[in-house]
């Protein structure tokens, strides 16, 4: 495939690291994997849901299983020491990648959702009191929104949702008016998975801190796509998922300031997170292990390290430029049609574009795009309340990553036109 790129990425070379981009689709989907009836090239534009995995990441995990698979922390034998060191160093690597002070501030979770739940069940259940409030936004993913909503219900606290403006940006005046001295937590998404909006998370955190509140930033769409520095943001908590940044599923990261994590009680209890267990009581391990009960995702941690290595080799600034350029191109091409409504701002957007084709339900559109090999997301994208605000039941989302090209967006536009003709 010819590539065109103004951001300096060698997209053609990058694509060669992703075998799945070569497969064809269109055949029997009830059996996983390719079959002889697949006849359609794949144009994968669903990266905000999950990204693909380069050979380097799969090979790192294969090496782990073939060469040093073992349980971590407790073993004295050689394999266990090798696995333990790799697992522990994965925390250092993740810390360095997002500007955390060290492994004490990096807790591996299952995903971003679990990171939110961890804070809700530890900080929330012990610190959030009736009469206090949690301020979050209308554009939150359910991972954040549902967690805060349920926590507030349990604690008798109030939940407040900051509104979005017509362009899909956060109304910062509304945010300032909703954060008050009874606010205990301000939680905002860094990059919206539906609108593509990039929120001023540093400013949001400052506002939280002025009122003595904590801030929790959802970085699931940000960390994969741009340089992120949690210390610069000054966020108290920050979360992201491995599978959206070329890594495996089953691993996510909760960043937390060390002094906060030290004060929190454990989330899940059991093996690995204890120091001394007696029948009468138990003391906890040091950070971050206090929050990692049971056998952790070891192979996944090894994969995450390889994914971070890959991303840094390519360069996060270059990835951000490439994505922004593709998002702008997609936005502009979709804007050529009067029957397409696009959500979110034109300027300063992450690498995704959400839209609707008039008269065609997002699921119908997605089915027809799939027939043309174009993989997009259709539905509520885990932001049902935001779709209520937008006044639509669902939307279609094309999201881009370092291996996507303008030509793939042209395929998207052509396939949308087929749907338009079919439903005319």
């Amino acid at each position, binding site marked *: 495939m010819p590539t065109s790129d103004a951001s300096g990425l060698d997209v053609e070379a990058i694509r060669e690291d992703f075998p799945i981009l070569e497969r064809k689709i*269109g055949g029997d*989907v*009830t059996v996983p994997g390719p079959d002889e009836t697949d006849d359609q090239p794949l144009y994968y534009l669903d990266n905000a849901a999950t990204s693909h995995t380069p050979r380097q990441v799969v090979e790192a995990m294969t090496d782990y299983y073939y060469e040093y698979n073992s349980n971590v922390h407790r073993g004295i034998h050689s394999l266990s020491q090798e696995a333990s060191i790799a697992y522990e160093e994965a925390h250092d690597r993740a810390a360095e990648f997002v500007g955390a002070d060290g492994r004490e501030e990096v807790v591996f979770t299952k995903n971003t959702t679990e990171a939110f739940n961890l804070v809700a069940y530890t900080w929330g259940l012990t610190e959030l009191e009736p009469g206090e409030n949690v301020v979050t936004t209308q554009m939150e993913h359910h991972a954040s929104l549902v967690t805060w909503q349920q926590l507030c219900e349990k604690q008798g606290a109030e939940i407040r949702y900051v509104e979005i403006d017509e362009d899909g940006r956060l109304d910062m005046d509304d945010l300032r008016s909703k954060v008050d001295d009874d606010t205990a937590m301000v939680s905002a998404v860094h990059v919206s998975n539906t609108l593509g909006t990039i929120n001023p998370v540093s400013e949001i955190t400052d506002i939280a801190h002025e009122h003595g509140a904590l801030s929790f930033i959802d970085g699931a769409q940000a960390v994969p796509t741009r340089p992120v520095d949690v210390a610069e943001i000054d966020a108290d908590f920050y979360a992201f998922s491995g599978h959206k940044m070329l890594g495996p599923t089953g691993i996510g990261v909760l960043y937390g300031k060390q002094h906060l994590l030290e004060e929190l009680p454990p989330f899940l209890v059991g093996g690995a997170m204890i120091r001394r267990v007696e029948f009468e009581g138990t003391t906890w391990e040091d950070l971050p292990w206090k929050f990692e009960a049971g056998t952790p995702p070891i192979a996944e941690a090894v994969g995450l390290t390889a994914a971070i290595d890959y991303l840094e080799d390519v360069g996060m600034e270059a990835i951000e430029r490439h994505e922004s350029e593709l998002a702008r191109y997609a936005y502009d091409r979709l804007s050529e049609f009067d029957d397409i409504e696009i959500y979110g701002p034109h300027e300063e957007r992450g690498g995704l574009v959400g839209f609707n084709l008039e008269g*065609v*339900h*997002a*699921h*119908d559109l997605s*089915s*027809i*795009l*799939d*027939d*043309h090999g174009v993989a997009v997301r259709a*539905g*509520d994208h885990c932001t*049902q309340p935001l*779709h209520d605000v937008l006044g*639509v*039941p*669902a939307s279609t989302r094309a999201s881009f990553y370092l291996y996507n090209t303008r030509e793939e967006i042209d395929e998207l536009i052509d396939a949308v036109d*087929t749907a338009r003709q*079919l*439903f005319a």
Partner: protein
Amino acid sequence: MSGSDMYRQQILDHYKNPRNYGEMQDPDFSHVGENPSCGDTIQVDVKLADDDETIEQVAFSGDGCAISQAAASLLTETLPGKSIDELQAMDTDDIVDMLGVDISPMRIKCAVLARQVAQDGSKLYRGELDEKDRTITEE
């Protein structure tokens, strides 16, 4: 099976020109269903013959994707003349046959929503089902 295959003429025709669309005056029973993640909503109204068993007339209202709406429209033409027992015996294959196209696995829930609404409505009418606010066919 592929997207365009699902959108053959019959489906598109019933989506664009739904039959028996609108709420019925004095139905014998009426029920509502919704698949929240799709936003598909369907209400089915049924009028029975004097035997209280034979379906005489069916209407539907609601909105959503082409598959859910076309399936509802087709159902309003298929059901009259059938008994409630026959309605309750209809399975997913019957709906796929009625639509005349293969439905991809992720869209089955759209295709069967109207049937499930009609079935639940009839069970509520006969007292075979406890009060159920809405019918949902997605997981």
